[in-house]
C-alpha cells in the first residue's frame, strides 16, 4: 500500500474541480458552506478582509479551531501556513488537514524559500500571479495552484489579471517549437520539464483555481470563463449581507458558469455583497500578492 503519492495529491485536487472552496472561521460557518454545496472549506481564524484590517503578523490558525471545523463537516478541510513555514505545515499534517495552502495572505516566514512540498504526504496548494510562479511552485511539489488575486478586497481585478497572465502564457507556449522551450523556461524562470509538459497538455499539469477578490456569482463565473478549474471565495461569503444565500448562489454560478440565464437567476435579490476595496488605494506594502515569488 502506497500513501502520499503525487497522484493521490493531485487526484484530490482533480476531485475539487468545478467547485467552490470557502473560507470559514468556525463550525457554524463550515456547516453553512457544506450545506450550500462547497467542495471544501478553508479553516481560518480570520477571513482575509479582517486580517487586512487587523494588521500585525498573521500566522497559522489555532489547531483547535481547525479541528473544530474538521469535526463539523464531512467535506475536505484546508488550512493556511505562512510561506516557507514548514513547521506550521508539519503541525497541520499532524492534525490531519486534507490540504495545506502555503499562502501570501499570512505574513511570510521566509522571503527566499518556499516549503519543500515533496517532503509532505499532505497535498499543497500555492498562489501565483503568472505561469513562471505557478511552475516554480509545482516544481517544489504543489499539487494544486490558485491565482493570487488580491485577497480581502472583494475586488476581482487582480484575480482577472493573474488568470489572464497564466492562460495567455499557456496559449503562447502551446505554439512553440521544441527548441524554443528552453528559452522560455529561462525567461519564465521555470523548470524546463514543466514548461515542456505545459506545451504537451495545453494547460497546467495540476488543477488551477482562481482566488483573491471574488465577491459575487458573476465574479465566480467570470473566472471560470477565463479558464479557472474552480474558485476560492474568501471574505466574499461571510462578509456579505446574507452568507447562506451568497454561498449557494456562487456554487450554482460555478457549476453553470457558461449559462447566462442561470447566472441571472442566481444573482437576483442576494442583498449587499461584501464592501470592496479599490486595489489602487493600497500601498505596495499593503499588497498581499507580492509576497512569495
Amino acid at each position, binding site marked *: 500500500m502506497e500513501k502520499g503519492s503525487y497522484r493521490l495529491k493531485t487526484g484530490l485536487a482533480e*476531485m475539487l474541480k468545478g467547485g467552490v472552496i470557502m473560507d470559514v472561521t468556525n463550525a457554524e460557518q463550515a456547516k453553512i458552506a457544506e450545506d450550500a454545496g462547497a467542495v471544501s472549506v478553508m479553516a481560518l481564524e480570520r477571513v482575509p478582509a479582517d486580517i487586512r484590517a487587523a494588521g500585525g503578523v498573521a500566522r497559522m490558525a489555532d489547531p483547535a479551531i481547525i479541528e473544530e471545523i474538521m469535526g463539523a463537516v*464531512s467535506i475536505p478541510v484546508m488550512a493556511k501556513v505562512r510561506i516557507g513555514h514548514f513547521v506550521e505545515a508539519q503541525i497541520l499534517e499532524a492534525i490531519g*488537514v486534507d490540504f495545506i495552502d502555503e499562502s501570501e495572505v499570512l505574513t511570510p516566514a521566509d522571503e527566499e524559500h518556499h516549503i519543500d512540498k515533496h517532503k509532505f504526504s499532505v497535498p499543497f496548494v500555492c498562489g501565483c500571479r503568472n505561469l513562471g510562479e505557478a511552475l516554480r511552485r509545482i516544481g517544489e511539489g504543489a499539487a494544486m495552484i490558485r491565482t493570487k488575486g488580491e485577497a480581502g478586497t472583494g475586488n476581482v481585478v487582480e484575480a482577472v489579471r493573474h488568470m489572464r497572465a497564466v492562460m495567455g502564457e499557456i496559449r503562447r507556449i502551446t505554439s512553440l517549437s521544441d527548441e524554443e522551450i528552453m528559452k522560455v523556461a529561462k525567461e519564465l524562470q521555470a523548470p524546463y520539464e514543466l514548461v515542456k509538459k505545459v506545451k504537451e497538455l495545453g494547460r497546467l499539469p495540476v488543477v488551477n483555481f482562481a482566488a483573491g477578490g471574488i465577491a459575487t456569482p458573476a465574479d465566480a463565473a467570470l473566472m471560470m470563463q477565463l479558464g479557472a478549474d474552480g474558485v476560492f471565495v474568501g471574505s466574499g461569503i461571510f462578509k456579505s449581507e446574507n452568507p447562506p444565500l451568497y454561498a449557494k448562489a456562487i456554487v450554482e454560478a460555478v*457549476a453553470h458558469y457558461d449559462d447566462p440565464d442561470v447566472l441571472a437567476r442566481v444573482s437576483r435579490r442576494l442583498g449587499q455583497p461584501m464592501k470592496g476595496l479599490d486595489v489602487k488605494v493600497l500601498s505596495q506594502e499593503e499588497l498581499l500578492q507580492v509576497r512569495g515569488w
Partner: protein
Amino acid sequence: MRIGVLAFQGDVREHIQAIEKAGGKAMPVKRAVEISKLDGLIIPGGESTTIARFIKEEGLTEPIRAQVSSGMPIYGTCAGLIILARRVENNAVFSLKILDVEVKRNAYGRQRESFEDEIEVEGFETPYRGVFIRAPLISKVGPQVKVLARYQGKPVLVLEKNVLASTFHPELTSDDRIHRLFLSLIDGSKKS
C-alpha cells in the same frame, strides 16, 4: 454511442479522456433532456454532497432512474458510487438508490489515509492499480450484486445488471480496462 459524464463538479475531464482512450466518445452533460438521449452515463468522482445537491435540485433523479431501469448502463466512481447507492450511512447524502449496496463515506479516514494498491479484478489477467482518495466503503451488498473486486476483504468494484460502481478512480490511471468493461456493457445493452 452517446456517453455522458455528469458535469456539475468533479473529475469530468479525466473520465472523458479515459473513455476516449478505451475507444469510445463521451461528452459532459447537465440537463434532463441530454440524459434521456444517452446510451451510457458516468457519475464522476468529486464531492458527493455537492453533486447530489445538483442532481436533486436540477430534477435529474427521475430522468436518470428511468434511463437506468430501461437498461442504460451507468458507472459511478467514488462520489458517483455513493450517489448510486441504496443507502448511505447516517443518510449523510441524498442518493439515487439504483445500486443495492450500503456505503460509508470517507471510511478510510482523511486525505492522509488515501492510498494506492494493486487489486485483483475478476476477468483481468494482471492486477489493477486502485487509486483510493478519501474513499467510501461498501459495507453491505444485495443478493443481485456481483462483486468484481475486493480489497482487504471489502467490495471495491461491483456490478448489478447495468449498474457498475467502484470506490476507486480508474480515470486517474492510464489503465483503461475498467472503462473498456463499461463500454462493453453499453455494447451489450444496445444489442439486447
